[in-house]
């Protein structure tokens, strides 16, 4: 039997990221139609269309400021990558890092043999965690800066900025896979390769979430909900 409640994720997405000034009315209309027998698929399609239309309209109305805001956000991320994340990620690749190879050698002389798994699993994960943590701070700062450019169009501008970061990472992975094949297929190290790949993608995902957080998009939005009890006390 079909639930009387519309898809919660779709409703949450529209409530948080809906850019239309009439967002509450749209949510109400969608819920009313859903309860009159429309399908879940219809509800999702309507939600996504409302999100995209609102986003494009919001950005278009402030296109000059949106462009400057998104460019500023990207400059912050590029500087962070050049100054911190790049060198740190290079350091993680201990096979090519003489410092870590030396450390690995020294520790192998001091620590018991089975402790070497630290280098194999935990050390790259630990470094990736540090990169993700730094990325979160930088992502939140960039999201906050982007949001301040035009507070009235904060939601569409920050959403587009986060979407552009998402697209960039997706294109980067796709190009890398096309050029060098799957990044985790190193003979004899498949599981570790996959693990490293996933850890890095999680690090990127946390940056994207922190951009939304910094831009104030994950705060609960106050809806103009007027309950029936309020109307008819």
């Amino acid at each position, binding site marked *: 039997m079909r639930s009387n409640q519309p898809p919660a994720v779709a409703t949450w997405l529209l409530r948080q990221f809906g850019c239309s000034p009439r967002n509450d009315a749209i949510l109400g209309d969608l819920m009313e139609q859903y309860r009159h027998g429309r399908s879940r698929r219809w509800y999702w399609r309507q939600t996504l269309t409302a999100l995209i239309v609102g986003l494009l309209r919001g950005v278009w109305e402030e296109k000059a400021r949106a462009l400057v805001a998104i460019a500023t956000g990207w400059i912050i991320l590029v500087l962070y990558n050049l100054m911190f994340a790049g060198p740190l990620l290079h350091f993680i690749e201990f096979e090519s890092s003489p410092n870590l190879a030396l450390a690995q050698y020294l520790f192998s002389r001091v620590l018991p043999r089975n402790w070497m798994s630290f280098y194999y699993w935990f050390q790259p994960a630990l470094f990736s965690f540090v990169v993700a943590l730094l990325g979160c701070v930088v992502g939140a700062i960039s999201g906050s800066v982007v949001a301040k450019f035009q507070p009235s169009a904060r939601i569409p501008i920050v959403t587009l900025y986060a979407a552009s970061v998402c697209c960039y990472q997706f294109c980067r992975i796709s190009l890398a896979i096309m050029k060098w094949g799957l990044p985790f297929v190193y003979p004899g190290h498949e599981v570790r390769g996959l693990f490293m790949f996933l850890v890095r993608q999680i690090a990127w995902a946390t940056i994207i979430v922190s951009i939304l957080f910094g831009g104030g998009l994950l705060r609960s939005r106050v809806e103009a909900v007027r309950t*029936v009890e309020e109307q008819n006390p």
Partner: protein
Amino acid sequence: MVMLALICLGDNAYGVPISEELEKRTGRDVAIGSVYAALERLEDKGFVTSELGEATPERGGRAKRYFRVSARGLKEVRETQRALVKLWHGLPELEGGKA
């Protein structure tokens, strides 16, 4: 098209009936988000006015927003109709239902 739907619906013009009317007239699925985008543009131009209506439990407690065509909007509709009729008469290939 949205303005014509509003005129047709009269006092009961909020998101659901407007999109249903458009679906009925065009025979195509209509996105509520696009309808609201058009209504907001028309409202910015002063062709349409809106006001909050009642909230019902089936809408999750959210209020309806009723739209109405303003006097300026009605004038614009009439002018557009006149312009379209003039254009139509200027195309003899389309007169008499022949395409």
